[in-house]
């Protein structure tokens, strides 16, 4: 019995110092992203390659005009080889909000959500499972993201030619998520 207790005590001592870093920041994160016309504001963080969930809301506050760049917001996963895959939300013609899955190879991407434009916060989530499968949810729509074979290294949230508020951003391990 003493051996069991000793082993458990050692395990506790092993985990305790590493858990200090977890206690440094307290979620959620807010990113009030206000990019001038033709420019971007971007928050980038390194990530563990798998077992990750990012959730929060995206809210457009103001749209700017630029001859070349449409106002938009994005949530991307980026690989070590700089391949980018993820979600782009923008205002489409006829006053529609459109969310698309885009990638470096396919910047136009495919649409997963189209709805009448609203300024309300739109919930989103992005998950990468232990097996490396990624899923994106925005509003009531979901899609999978082909990231197999990519060594994902960064998560990028940003906006272009618009004022966009990312709120209540919580980034957790899928397993550790309550």
């Amino acid at each position, binding site marked *: 019995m003493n051996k069991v207790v000793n082993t*458990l005590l050692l395990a506790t001592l092993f985990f305790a*110092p590493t858990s*200090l870093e977890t206690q440094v920041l307290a979620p959620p994160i807010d990113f009030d992203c206000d990019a001038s016309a033709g420019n971007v504001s971007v928050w980038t963080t390194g990530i563990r390659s798998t077992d990750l969930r990012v959730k929060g809301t995206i809210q457009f506050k103001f749209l700017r005009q630029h001859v070349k760049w449409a106002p938009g917001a994005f949530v991307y996963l980026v690989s070590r080889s700089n391949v980018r895959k993820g979600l782009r939300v923008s205002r489409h013609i006829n006053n529609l909000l459109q969310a698309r899955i885009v990638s470096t190879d396919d910047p136009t991407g495919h649409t997963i959500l189209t709805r009448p434009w609203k300024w309300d916060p739109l919930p989103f989530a992005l998950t990468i499972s232990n097996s490396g499968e990624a899923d994106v949810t925005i509003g009531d729509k979901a899609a999978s993201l082909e990231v197999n074979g990519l060594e994902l290294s960064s998560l990028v949230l940003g906006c272009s030619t618009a004022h966009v508020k990312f709120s209540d951003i919580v980034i957790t391990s899928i397993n550790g998520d309550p």
Partner: protein
Amino acid sequence: MRSTARQVVSTLVQVILLVASTTLHAQVLVPPMAFDCDAEPGSASTWTTGISSADLRVRGTIEFNQLRRQLKWAPVASVVFIDRSDAQSGFQIFTRRFESKDMLEVAMASPEPPTAQIVILAYPWKGKPLPFTLAISESGEVNVTVGDKSASLKVNRLEQDRLSLFCSAANVVFSDIVITSSSDDT
């Protein structure tokens, strides 16, 4: 006796599970992070996170890539702790609107008037990234180091609940940002 031992083991297992789950959380993000902050005059981009550690250190570099001056608005960037009443403690970097236009000034941000706006460094804005450290101790001492200059001020640590990176009227890149507790900082 046997039941006491079982209780001890059970408690230890629970502690391990609790700590292990929070440790998992820690491993989700891998520092450093970066914030490419762009904002027009009169607007601002801000990255904000809650803080929970008793002591905290933020280090990284800051570089102004573009200044967007207007008559009314001057370029500014800041790294600050924010308390429950929205008072800020840390530092801000700004240009004067009408004089020394090629110079950036680094000043303390503080809710206390004597400390606020004390300029600790002035430097030409075009150049390389400027290293900085902002730290708060358990006793509420806030230490700022920008370039080779340092200053400190005192706040109520218990009131500080957020950390914020901010820019306005400029394109400012915050790079290699690492946020740690002082005790585990290497």
